């Protein structure tokens, strides 16, 4: 940078100065939050880690599909009607209809893989910025603490949706490639068209994504507690495993309805005819409770926190 080079630029800065200086008083662009949100989501998606997580999630349906294909030798195997609505039951249906791979893959990834990926992204949301030091520059920009937290949570929600859709899309592609597709037999035994089945599959993916919102809020809260990205990710995933274990101990049935993962498997009810909403609504209410409690806690913590990293 030479003097000759900088001098004219200095001039342009100066002439624009007075105009720009009134900025803070000027009415804000109503889209200002979207600008940061866009930046946040694209930044998140450009991390290698996000690619790796989505890659693993996309690989799960491929593995399931290939395993089922090898196991049944490609022929139309067991066509026993699923009655329990439990995850693995969908596997039997896959050989008859590739669309069922979507449900089977979601059922396989929902207990561990999906929430783990969400836990990594949510746990890292604030703590990762703190440990890399970028948080202080975002805050003096000034991003605003409440606004930044909202944007962070929104981008974690976007990741929940993207992750679920990646599983569903990969499963749909693999299912259509390896198995026949056609009319869908619901859990209730009735048959619906393939198009209707696709809609149900999309709805299922959406329900799964919503199921993750409570856990995402929990991860965001943990993320505001520490300045270490790795620590926050580990704590969030640790909480997930703890809750899964608690949910599997029958003696603790009293607390089960309050565990965020308890109603996760209710997404299978989307495949009933008509859709069986009871557990789905309980799931949504529980997620809403978790989101309210932990987003409030995260806000209270983050807006009062000393940023020393």
């Amino acid at each position, binding site marked *: *940078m030479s*003097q000759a*080079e*900088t001098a004219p*630029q*200095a001039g*342009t*800065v*100066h002439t*624009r*100065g007075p105009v*720009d*200086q009134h*900025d*803070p*008083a*000027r009415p*804000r*662009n109503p889209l*200002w*939050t979207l*600008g*940061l949100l*866009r*930046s946040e989501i694209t*930044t998140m998606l*450009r*991390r*290698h880690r996000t690619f790796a997580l989505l890659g693993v999630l996309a690989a799960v349906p491929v593995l399931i599909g290939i395993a089922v294909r090898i196991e049944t030798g490609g022929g139309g195997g067991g066509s026993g009607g699923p009655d329990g609505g439990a995850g693995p039951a969908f596997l039997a249906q896959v050989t008859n209809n590739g669309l069922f791979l979507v449900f089977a893959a979601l059922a396989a990834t929902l207990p561990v893989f999906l929430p783990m990926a969400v836990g990594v992204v949510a746990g890292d949301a604030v703590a990762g910025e703190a440990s*890399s*030091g*970028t948080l*202080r*520059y*975002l*805050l*003096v*920009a*000034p*991003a*605003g603490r409440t*606004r*930044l937290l909202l944007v962070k949570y929104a981008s974690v929600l976007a990741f929940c949706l993207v992750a679920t859709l990646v599983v569903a899309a990969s499963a749909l592609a693999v299912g259509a490639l390896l198995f026949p597709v056609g009319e869908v037999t619901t859990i209730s035994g009735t048959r619906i068209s393939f198009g209707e089945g696709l809609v149900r599959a999309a709805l299922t993916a959406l329900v799964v994504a919503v199921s993750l919102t409570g856990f995402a809020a929990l991860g965001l809260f943990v993320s505001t507690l520490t300045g270490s990205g790795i620590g926050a990710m580990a704590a969030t995933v640790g909480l997930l495993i703890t809750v899964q274990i608690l949910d599997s101990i029958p003696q603790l049935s009293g607390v089960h309805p309050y565990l965020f993962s308890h109603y996760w498997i209710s997404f299978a009810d989307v495949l009933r005819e008509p859709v069986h909403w009871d557990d789905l609504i309980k799931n949504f209410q529980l997620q809403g409770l978790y989101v309210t409690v932990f987003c409030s806690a995260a806000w209270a913590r983050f807006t*009062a926190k*000393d*940023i*020393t990293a």
Partner: protein
Amino acid sequence: MTTTGTGGSAGACAARAGAGAASGGAGTASTPGASGSAHASGGADAARATGTAGAAGAEETGPVVIRTRGLTKRYRGGQLAVDGLDLTVPGGSVFGFLGPNGSGKTTTIRMLMGLIDPTSGTAEVLGRPMPGAARTVLPEVGALIEGPALYGFLNGRDNLLRYDRADPTADPRTRRARVDEALARVGLAAASGKKAKAYSLGMKQRLGLAAALLRPRRLLVLDEPTNGLDPQGMREIRSLVRELAAEGTTVFLSSHLLDEIEQVCTHAAVMARGRLIVQGPVADLAAGARGRLAVTTPDPGDAARILREQGLTGLSADGDRLTADAPPAAVDLADLNAALVSGGVRVRFFGVERGSLEDAFVALTGEGFDVAG
């Protein structure tokens, strides 16, 4: 405020007038006369000549950009990081913030930027309270705090775009142009497409500076901006700071490099162990350490005798080099030199060596730059 100024009144006055001229040159509305006639508003100890003259002068020369009153931060462990800080940064100044490691400089800067809540006391930046008015104040403040922090997986330009998007008051229509301008200004235009993790420390430092320059700012807070830069880079940063100051931007510069402060700053403050030791125009502070008259001659004995006859004190000889306390302003150096020559002393070198900020600093802090325990 604990002040230990040692400046003679004549020296301080002259220095103050000089500082007024310097800040006038930096684009403020001050006049040397107004600054020269500045008088301290409170306190009665002689030490205020260096201690508060700058603050009082600043109130007359223009708006105060940073003002803290009793600013205190005690961390949860009970450690008192900043203790009753009363800091005044006059508008248009290049303000050097000095202190040993661990003296509370960074904690102060973080409180000024609203990153840390003070335990007690108040801070005003650009006339508005912090952290309360952060949303209106910070868009007009560019900051480089404790080194740059970048997204390694993004290239230089995308890093700046991200920081600019974080500012809700930044105009998205001029965003790309402003980013390019900032990159060019710190000499990174050619490397802007490279991933930030491939940057050297100096390049990261430049990118951090570019982020602070994304918009025209009224105040720039630069925490050790030349860290990690090569000598060439340091010179560029210094010239950039001068250039920005000439445009009217107030620059608050923390550094541990005394000659850096002396070269670019008009004002300075010194912290030690969480307390403010002294603040004021650099020339005043440096004047606190009085200059020395130095004579180089093959006849040091005769020279010492003649100088003593002329009323000089504090003589000391080292080989053919003789030094003494600088004479009062009333004494013409030419007469001294003539006395030496007419006394048969052969003079190789003759002149007054000005007191440096470093001398003043050592005089103020005693032990110098030891890390506070």
